[in-house]
């Protein structure tokens, strides 16, 4: 009688993404999608009712994260503007104020 000792497993490397920008950072939308992608993954093989619920939850979370990311950017702008004004760089502060997240 033969015993099966293994089923062909191994250490496997997954795929990944590389995203770059020029003369600017990633927009808020990039980070919203990035965070959503890390938090909630909906498998294609999931049963349809579960899949539908998971997608609905993901979309509701997307709204929350979108607001949070943009507010964080605006808060950082506020801090930068305050520092620049304190240093007498009013033009730079005004420039930052025009950048929308």
């Amino acid at each position: 009688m033969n015993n099966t000792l293994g089923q062909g497993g191994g250490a496997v490397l997954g795929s990944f993404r590389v995203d770059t920008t020029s003369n600017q950072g990633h927009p808020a939308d990039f980070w919203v999608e990035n965070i959503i992608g890390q938090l909630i993954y909906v498998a294609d093989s999931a049963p349809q009712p579960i899949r539908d619920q998971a997608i609905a939850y993901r979309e509701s979370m997307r709204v929350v994260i979108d607001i949070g990311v943009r507010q964080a950017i605006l808060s950082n702008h506020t801090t930068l503007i305050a520092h620049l004004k304190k240093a007498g760089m009013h033009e730079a502060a005004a420039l930052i104020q025009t950048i929308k997240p």
Partner: protein
Amino acid sequence: MVATAGICHTFKQELLVATHNFTITTGDVFKIALMTSASTNTPTTDHYSGGTININSEVAATGGYTAGGNTLANITPVLNGTEGCASFSTTTWSTSTITARSAMIYNSTDGNRAVAILDFGSDKVSSAGDFTITFPAQTAGNAIIRIT
């Protein structure tokens, strides 16, 4: 020449003697270093430095890149289906000017032992911008490091 992607051979043996700990916060510190298209690293690479086969053609330490690369934020491994899955949070070199073709993940806590070589497929370029690597969902069939 370009680097060849894959899980490093020595890493497979090191798993069996509990060398690496991917637990969030309390685990080992893993880093990711970038390499140019001149790199010839393959999964036979055993260390970032201090080993028999080390990193070669790392991106120069200018333009927002520092030697050794970025520290990764661990995500505690999970069992998903029949696969053990490890992953990391997204990492970014901000305000950087970088051209890189591949990367090496390594364990800086434990002698800079190599974990994996990543191939970007082509040169990726940031110019006074962001250079971001996003790891896949931590699930079977997707996670960046999987034991199947």
